[in-house]
């Protein structure tokens, strides 16, 4: 074998096992990646399948994701069926047995959180739209739930990498303290909106609104996953007028056409805010994300 070929093989082997010694963590969504980065510091290489601008319901199990999952030591997911359309083909395709569900390398962050919107099993039907049987999966937009996530992630990292266990736990503790401190400020900023009704596009904002005392009067989507119909928009306009709603809040990947129509008829303000880290240059980490949502709502 010539030296050149040997070098190429060596280079391939190195690239495949790069960051050796560092934990390789892959998260399904970018908010989980940001929390993991805060908890792991320099001890892990963290990447997210879903960029902040993509709706995590609707991804395809692309070869690129298979490549990301292939060398992961830990796979972290939101759970509650958010990733159901693409997660298993990615994990199967990666041939990475460490990250299959049920193994220490697979973490579902939803286990500890207080779930909302859990449909009554006896009433559950697909006619309700894209309803998740285990409840509304957009829980990380509530900073209190981000604290639970940080704790879960720290415990799992400690289990996989026991010699750095204290660092992970301390980092998670510091993150929780920071959230607690910022929470007072966020609540203060959101005070003028407390008790007010708003309109949202998808039910992505439920946990956030619960935390800060906002009421969601109606969604622009008639049912989860179903785009606004003209009849439904009429109903939205009636609701906005009846409840004197001033705000329509929506995620960045939806067209603002429906919201603009309602705004035009009612004078309500349309606010587009990110729901995931990285979808806006100003929301490059989890705390900046909440900062930005609060700022957009209150400016």
């Amino acid at each position: 074998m010539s030296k050149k070929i040997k070098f190429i093989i060596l280079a391939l082997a190195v690239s495949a096992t790069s960051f050796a010694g560092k934990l390789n963590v892959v998260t399904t969504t970018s908010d989980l990646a940001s929390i993991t980065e805060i908890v792991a510091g320099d001890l892990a290489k963290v990447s997210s399948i879903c960029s902040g601008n993509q709706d995590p319901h609707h991804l395809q199990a692309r070869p690129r994701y298979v490549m990301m999952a292939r060398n992961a030591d830990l796979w972290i997911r939101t759970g509650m069926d958010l990733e159901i359309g693409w997660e298993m083909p990615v994990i199967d395709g990666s041939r990475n047995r460490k990250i299959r569900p049920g193994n220490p390398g697979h973490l579902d962050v939803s286990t500890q959180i207080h779930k909302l919107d859990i449909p009554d099993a006896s009433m559950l039907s697909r006619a309700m739209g894209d309803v998740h049987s285990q409840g509304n999966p957009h829980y990380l937009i509530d900073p209190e739930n981000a604290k639970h996530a940080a704790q879960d992630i720290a415990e799992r990292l400690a289990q996989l990498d026991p010699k750095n266990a204290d660092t992970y736990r301390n980092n998670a503790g510091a993150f929780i303290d920071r959230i607690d401190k910022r929470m007072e400020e966020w609540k203060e900023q959101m005070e003028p909106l407390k008790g007010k009704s708003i309109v949202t596009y998808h039910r992505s904002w439920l946990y956030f609104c619960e935390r800060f005392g906002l009421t969601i009067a109606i969604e622009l989507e008639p049912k989860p996953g179903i785009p606004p119909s003209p009849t439904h928009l009429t109903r939205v306009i009636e609701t906005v007028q009846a409840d004197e709603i001033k705000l329509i809040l929506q995620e960045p990947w939806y067209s603002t056409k429906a919201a603009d129509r309602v705004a035009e008829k009612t004078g309500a303000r349309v606010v587009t805010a990110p729901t995931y880290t990285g979808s806006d240059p100003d929301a490059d980490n989890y705390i900046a994300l909440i900062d930005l949502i609060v700022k957009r709502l209150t400016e």
Partner: protein
Amino acid sequence: MKYHYSSAILVMAGALLTLNAVAQDDTPEKVPTRNDSTSALSAFNPAVSAIVDMYYYNENSKEGLSHMKEEMPGFAGHSHGEDEHDHGEKENGFNLNHVELTLSAEVDNYFKALANVAISEDGAEIEEAWAETTGLPWGFQAKAGKLFSNFGYINAQHSHMWDFSDQPLIYELSLGSHGLNDKGVQLSWLAPTPVYLLFGAEVFQGDNEMMYVQKENDDLPKNDGPRLGVGWVKLAPLQIDNHELLLGLFGASGSHQEVHEEGGATNSFDGINWFAGADAVYKFDSGKAYDQGDATVQAEYFYRNKELDQENGDEELTGAQDGYYIQGTYGILPRWRGGLRWEQVGLTNQEEEEGIKKEFSDSWRATAMVDLRPSEFSQVRFQVSNGDYDLGDKGVENVWEVYVQLTFSIGAHDAHSF
């Protein structure tokens, strides 16, 4: 068409189905909730789903398009057994393609398994029944049972996943309505390279209705299985956010027998059928909601070659055919897609029997479709095709085809591979 009003009724029915999804007057009922975290679903139950696939179909050929396809020189169905039932045959009017029942689950710590039974009005057929390893090291994976070969792009997809209501001509004419779907084993290896590089090798029993047939005939040897080997490689060279490109090369070789009855004489042939080709798929994710602006372009080229020896004589029977398709889809509106497909078969189309070499010409078909996916679980599709089919001595016949297809899925939420 016999009844002139029927097309009008069909269009109305299709429009109503579409309208039902587009302008549904939804009562904004609140989802009843309860606040505990126990899930109603048990993880130990296998995921169960049923997919109902049906269509209205009409074509205007003189003798029936499926009959014509069996007469196309070069692709002619010498290999069709007399008693063999062709499941791809469509009737003018309403067709229930099939109901597909799927059960899947992790078997244990080592395997996952899936069973898929397609039930049609003529009976049930096992489309897939396999177990796949989940714990092999170094990027290996093995799969055994009855499975779709993973060569090319469209072969491994169930019919309800296709972007058009029918399969490309070259697939239908070469491998039949089920593609290459057989009992066997598959071994694949994800190479530890910085780009996605997947190698696969498959060994099958070699029971295909078109290209890999064993005949009952005293002159012919009884060939033991496995009689078919397939190899493929897939490469995804791009690592860009919203773009994905997947390229593939494939080849296969296996045992094939034919019996020709001409002018009172019966000639029996035994030998090798092989095929090779390439596939490419590009997908663009616009990032917009409800698949608006998403685009897909895919193309496959397929070349096949036959080399058979006469068992009750000294003659040879050889042939070579090829074909390709290229198709694209685009999310024209939220939940609506439009698609175009162009395909040709028989650009190479020759046969040599008893020293006489014959060259045949090619056939083509152009297809347009529009579909609506009201949700993840339902789809309505309208499709129109027009094509010229070369029938050798009978000349060329132009045929129009129309589909209105409905696909419903109940049960577990599907997760699709790329």
